[in-house]
């Protein structure tokens, strides 16, 4: 049962990403040199370009040498050599600490944490070191060349330790940026921006979409702006905000709501910190209603921050309380995953009750 419903979501993810996402963003990107590409291959392309365009770029992490457990680093070591693309010992704090030192020397250090669930041993290095490196030195030193890639989120069978969405922890840390792409084309452009951004970035990749999401991805080198949200579907009755894999689920809810005569505006936040309040604010000023959805537990999730900020700015314009459709406040469960998840039906219910408030 669980598997069946998740497969359905998987299929819809696939379908949506093939149609909706590629057409909703800059059409100019889809040029003759584009090719149908899945998300891990788009990441792989971005890493190839990053290494090719900057001789001071390095890619490293656990099992990165042979191509990575999700194949994102396939072919990189062969092409660029084992001194620029290499395995590290199994030690997350070592990987990030090493990356900070490498970045502090003016290099582009692209560190892979195999699963976001395993990023916590590196928490101190990210929070106390990477994030404060520039500030504490009065800008004498910085590790802005550091990009931390980590697959996050549900995958249908990941249980506690292959499913987590820890983005909110990092959104509480001034000095780093947190970016989450929704599709292959976005992943490539955003990852290149992160790698070249002069600040340390945590880049969470929706692992469920690695193979499922396929869309036209330009083969050339392009970057997408950070800290800019994107309206990927225009509507007038309610604003939906999300990021990463959750957007495809939300898109499905929007389609179903449309059948019931509700016009939903869907926004991809893309960069969680520093985030684009203005785009959300102007949308909510138009619709008067806001729903936020993420896989991470609802309490203390980043949805809470968005909710509070928008209430501050749009209090008199709001027609209903801000709705949050998120993960439950439990550890990520295995067989209960379909119950835990902020699924389409939960979102649809919340859309309706917000509209009918």
């Amino acid at each position, binding site marked *: 049962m669980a598997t069946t419903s998740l497969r359905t979501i998987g299929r819809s993810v696939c379908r949506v990403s093939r149609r909706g996402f590629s057409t909703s963003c800059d059409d100019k990107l889809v040029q003759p040199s584009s090719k149908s590409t899945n998300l891990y291959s788009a990441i792989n392309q971005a890493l190839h370009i990053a290494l090719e365009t900057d001789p001071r770029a390095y890619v490293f992490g656990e099992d990165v040498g042979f191509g990575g457990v999700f194949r994102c680093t396939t072919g990189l070591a062969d092409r660029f050599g084992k001194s620029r693309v290499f395995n590290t010992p199994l030690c997350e704090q070592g990987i990030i600490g090493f990356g900070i030192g490498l970045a502090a020397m003016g290099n582009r250090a692209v560190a892979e944490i195999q699963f976001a669930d395993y990023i916590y041993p590196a928490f101190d290095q990210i929070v*106390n070191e990477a994030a404060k490196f*520039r500030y504490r*030195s009065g800008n004498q*030193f910085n590790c802005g060349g550091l990009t931390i890639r980590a697959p996050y989120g549900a995958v249908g069978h990941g249980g506690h330790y292959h499913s987590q969405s820890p983005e909110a922890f990092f959104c509480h840390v001034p000095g780093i940026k947190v970016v989450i792409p929704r599709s292959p084309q976005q992943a490539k452009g955003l990852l290149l921006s992160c790698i070249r951004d002069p600040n340390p970035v945590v880049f969470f990749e929706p692992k469920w979409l690695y193979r499922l999401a396929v869309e036209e991805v330009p083969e050339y080198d392009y970057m997408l702006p950070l800290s800019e949200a994107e309206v990927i579907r225009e509507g007038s009755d309610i604003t939906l905000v999300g990021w990463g894999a959750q957007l495809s689920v939300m898109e499905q809810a929007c389609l179903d709501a449309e059948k019931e005569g509700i016009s939903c505006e869907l926004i991809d936040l893309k960069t969680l910190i520093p985030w684009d309040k203005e785009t959300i604010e102007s949308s909510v000023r138009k619709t008067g209603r806001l729903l936020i959805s993420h896989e991470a537990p609802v309490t203390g999730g980043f949805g809470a921050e968005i909710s509070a900020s928008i209430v501050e700015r749009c209090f008199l314009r709001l027609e209903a309380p801000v709705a949050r459709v998120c993960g439950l406040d439990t550890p990520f469960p295995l067989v209960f995953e379909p119950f835990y998840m902020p699924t389409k039906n939960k979102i649809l219910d919340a859309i309706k009750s917000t509209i009918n408030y």
Partner: protein
Amino acid sequence: MALCLKTSRISIHCLKSKMGLLSMIKQDSCLSSLTHPQKPPFPTRNAQNFRDPDANFRMSATLFSARRLKSVKAEKQFCSLDNVDHNQVLDLPGGKVVLTPEMRFISESPEERAQCYRVLDNDGQLIMCSNFKKVGEEIAVKMYTDMVTLQTMDAVFYEAQRQGRISFYATTIGEEAINIASAAALTTDDLVFPQYREPGVLLWRGFTLQEFANQCFGNKADYGKGRQMPIHYGSNKLNYFTVSATIATQLPHAVGAAYSLKMDRRNACVITYFGDGGSSEGDFHAALNFAAVMEVPAIFFCRNNGWAISTPTSDQFRSDGVVVRGRGYGVRSIRVDGNDALAIYSAVHAAREMAISEHRPILIEAITYRVGHHSTSDDSTKYRPVDEIEWWRSARDPVARFRKWIESNGWWCSEAESELRNNVREQLLHAIQVAEKIEKPPLAELFMDVYDVPPSNLCEQEKLLGETVRRNPQYYPPDVSL
């Protein structure tokens, strides 16, 4: 150059003879000095760990250390196993391992503690036949001058904190030789990732007393823009990465930076400092292991001063200090007398040569004693005997020991001494007065450098805060300008 480590063959020879030498002068070694009859500082605490060592272990340990000193790579150590019957070895990705029908546990400790390299005895006299890197008059006098300057700076800044003029301070008393001699053995191209008790390295490289004072007062001229507590120095110009209060987090950074030096084929290495307490942190393990695997030119310098705030080394680890951990990671290591400037200078000099020419990390454990309190927020007499502190302050002062040596060379005299101390003190008092008068950084600096460019949320917060301060100036420090 008495201790020339140009080639590894010579180094084996030197180190072997040094080891022999050390066992000869054992009564005078710094470790035996720990068992001073009247005031044993950390005497028998660790002794129990080394009681019942395995005889076989001793032999294999000796053989193994000889192998390491010959800089033979791990895989090559098993070359001789090529002819061994296949039924008697396990062929693993990491090399061949000999099988044995004998169930034999490796002892938790060697029969003897790792010896401690020393050049100057307690009276500042060269130990006969010592192997060390020669130090000329100019360098020796600068080393001594900087040690005295460091001592004086500690006294003056400590006093300034007690008078409430600065918020915090931590002294380096007892570790002046570690600070200055290790710095002297390096070049300014070598990168420093400090803990926080190594201001002497910065001093050696030319950080001025005024620059120290500006940081401690957190004024506008502080490179850190008043954002960190006193003693969190940093200098891009002098390749000294800014101090942070976190323990051992700088160790993995040192590995990453050293990897960059190696990739750029620079004739430089990285040195990173940490304490005995820091060696218990996960980052220590991460860094040593990464450094060994990545084969980077990094020197890990442990100041084993016996105390991590109030925690003695006996509550910190059960190993023979930190030096023995090197082998666990495949890192060459040495223990030195941390109160002997010449020993430290020689060891760091040799470590630098090996690190750069052989692309390998080196671990140095300097045995010393934290004579001062952990910081001005600490009263160490609450957890250790005053006479223990006093004994180290007087009988084991590294500055006095080095002075005796340069005096015996005719490079120093009491007139020079009093002139130096008076001069430095005056300069420091002046620096403090100047630093105190310089205004604090403007409020805008609160919001700068979080990112390369302040994002909209910070711009918004800056605007709001500005309005609040203008409305209620009485609640905010007047010396920070809007």
